[in-house]
């Protein structure tokens, strides 16, 4: 059993804000949403891991496609 690191209402409001503010940049939005999801599930450590994964892949295009 794991604890969420952010309330659902707050997560939802941030998700909506991100979609609104990054709507013209789908790559950045995809990264932002994946990072938010990892934060909610694993906290700051999850975000650091996600950034490491993106770095490892080294290809933002393919990561965006996967997302």
């Amino acid at each position, binding site marked *: 059993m794991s604890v*969420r690191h952010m309330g659902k209402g707050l997560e939802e409001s941030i998700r909506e804000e*991100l979609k609104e503010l990054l709507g013209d940049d789908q790559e950045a939005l995809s*990264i932002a949403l994946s990072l938010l999801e990892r934060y909610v599930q694993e906290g700051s450590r999850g*975000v650091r891991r996600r*950034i490491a994964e993106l*770095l490892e892949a080294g*290809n933002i295009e393919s990561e965006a496609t996967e997302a």
Partner: protein
Amino acid sequence: MKAKLRRLEVNCFRGFRSQRIFEFPDGVTVVVGPVGSGKSSILSAIQFALYGFDFNTAMNLYQRESLINVECERAEVQLTLEVPGDGLYQVGRSLDRSGGRLRETVFLKTPQGDVVNGSVEVEAIIEELLGLDFQEFIRSVSLGYVLVHMLAYGRQASRSRALDILLGIRSIRAFYESLNPRRIKKEVDELRRNLEDLRREYSETEENYSRVKTRKRELESKKSELQKRLSDIQGQLKQLEEPVRNYLDLSRKIEDNKNYANRLREKIKHSPSELDPYRIMEEVEYVKRELRDVFEKLVVSQDYFNTLEKVQVSSENLHQTVALLEKLLDDAWRRYDRVWEAFQSSVNELEQRRGELRGLEKLLVELEPIISEYEEAEERLQELEAKYGTQEKLEKEFKKIEEELRENMKKLQQLKSIQQLKQSLAESALRRTSVTCPVCGSQIDSSIIDELRSELSQIAKQVLDYEKKIQENEKRLKELRALLEDIRGLKVTLVSREPDYDRYRDFIQRKEDLEEEIREDELVIKGKEHEYRSISAVLTSLDEKIGDLKRKLNEYSLSLEILKTEKEIAELEEQRKELEPYFTQYTKLKEEEKQATDALTKVEAELSALEESYVEQHLEELSREISGLESKISNLENLYVKLEKVRNTVRQILDKQRREKIEALNRRINEIIRKVYPSESIRSVELEIIEKYTRKGAPPASYYDIYVNTGSGRYKFNELLSDGQKTIVILSVLLAIYSQTRHKAGFIMLDEPLPNVDDEIKLAFLTTLAESEDIPQVIVTTQAEELTTKVSGINIIRLR
């Protein structure tokens, strides 16, 4: 409709060692008890029943296992919620640590009687019922004393942190701060350095490529020169091929002949002087003489002597002569074998005689004891007869003494009778004066007593004499009897052993005869054996001699062959000498050809190594690597830009949410205060955001201050207000946060809020506020037990 708490049942949960049940009616419920009585555990149990965590375990301040009472293996909590218009929901949750592993079981029973199991399913229903997840629940409905304390009495930073938590801003800020692109920047810098290295290598390779081209032209020229030189040498070599081939043929023949001569020499074992034909002839003559002597000793027919006489030894017929002598020697051996066979028959006869002699000796040995017994008996008999006389004489003496003994015994008997009679008469006469003799009738009186006594004395003397004679007779008879028994026994022995004695004497005679014969035969055989053995030795010696002669003759032939071969070698060497200059020139040219070929191979190898395609390929590989790396850097730079963009966007969201939440919160606080505290001393309360730049390049840190407008001015929250006013403000803030969050919870839980202020004011304010704000249930914990007597209209849960 908002959900309300109705009943809580705990067993072995935190401070509760046994089962406890708590009821929660509408209105304000105060949980009263001293430190450690379990006030906070009740709020913790409600959090756990609903979400599986309490504030402390969710923040990782404690492990979930610590929720089980230290004296128990299993903790159980059951909470009943009422949703007006729907019914009662019952949620039960337990933790079990038996078996070394922590296990959780959870169920939820609906008003319709359905039972849902599993933490995910139950949590989903709870979130639906309350409209809150755990994070939202602990920052708006179930407020711990730490947060409230930080809000009321903390410094600016602590108060700001508490407000951030309560408003949910802290999660957004933590999310923002975790979006750190430094690592990508570092990676990009590293890749840029690698790219620089690769570009440098590419440039160096290009320069190298140019040098390779120059060197290749030089080598091509050198290769052409070497090929021309090789062609010249090979032309000259072709002209010399014929004489060199002849030279090599001659050399091979010379070598073959030398090898042949050496092999022949190896076969010759005798010295040259031993192979002299005249010396060999002398040795043949010697063999001839010896053979003649042997023929004489073996007494062969005259034909052999004649054949031997005809043999004429010369250097021309040595092989034939030796062959003839060898044949004669074979005949001599055959003759010798026959003679030796006859000799062996004589030896066998002699051996038979020896066998007979051994048989006789064995019989004689067997008869020895009988003969010894016989001779001893004979000797003993002679001794006895010499000493005691013959058997006849001893038997006569025995009979005579036997007769004397009978006579003496008879006389002794008579004398003893007379002696007894006279003794009797004398004794009677002495007793009765006179007595008549019963034999003769004469009268005997005492006057003749003396006479009788004299007679009796004489008779006694005679008795003694006869007794002595009888003893001597008996002794002698005993001696004679023994002697006669000995003599008779000895004679019986002699008679019984006499046949064996006679046989023994015959065997002795035969033995002596055989020994004589054997001695004579042995002398003869020994002489013959010596003679035959000497003949055999001579024949053997002649065998060896003839064998040696044959070898010498063979080696003599080989030595002639060697001389012939050496002559051929000398002739071949003479021919070869004429071809020597051609061969020397050919060898020199061959060496030059080798050197030129080696140089050409080296040039070709270097040319091969300098193949341009290799360098070109390397340049292409470097180019591809540079291109790949540039692409990667571009991608990572793009990622960095995107991440920066995301970070800035989250920052915008953070600022916007904070601003909006604070604006809404300010409105709500003032509504609450105006409703429950219509005093002019607090006209309005205002939360203000203050941003401070602490680090260059970093976003500003946000702080909050609470300002209060009174009739006389605007002051900081903690500068002017009394404790009671502060309580009103803080509780207003908390309830504003509660009401600002969208949810369906009809209760608020405050764990020892503002412990330092007057509880009566606090409770009165909360009661009024709950009613005005339509909060069906307020649950407050406190240590102030006296409240139960001072405040009316509230529900009390008393703990000890």
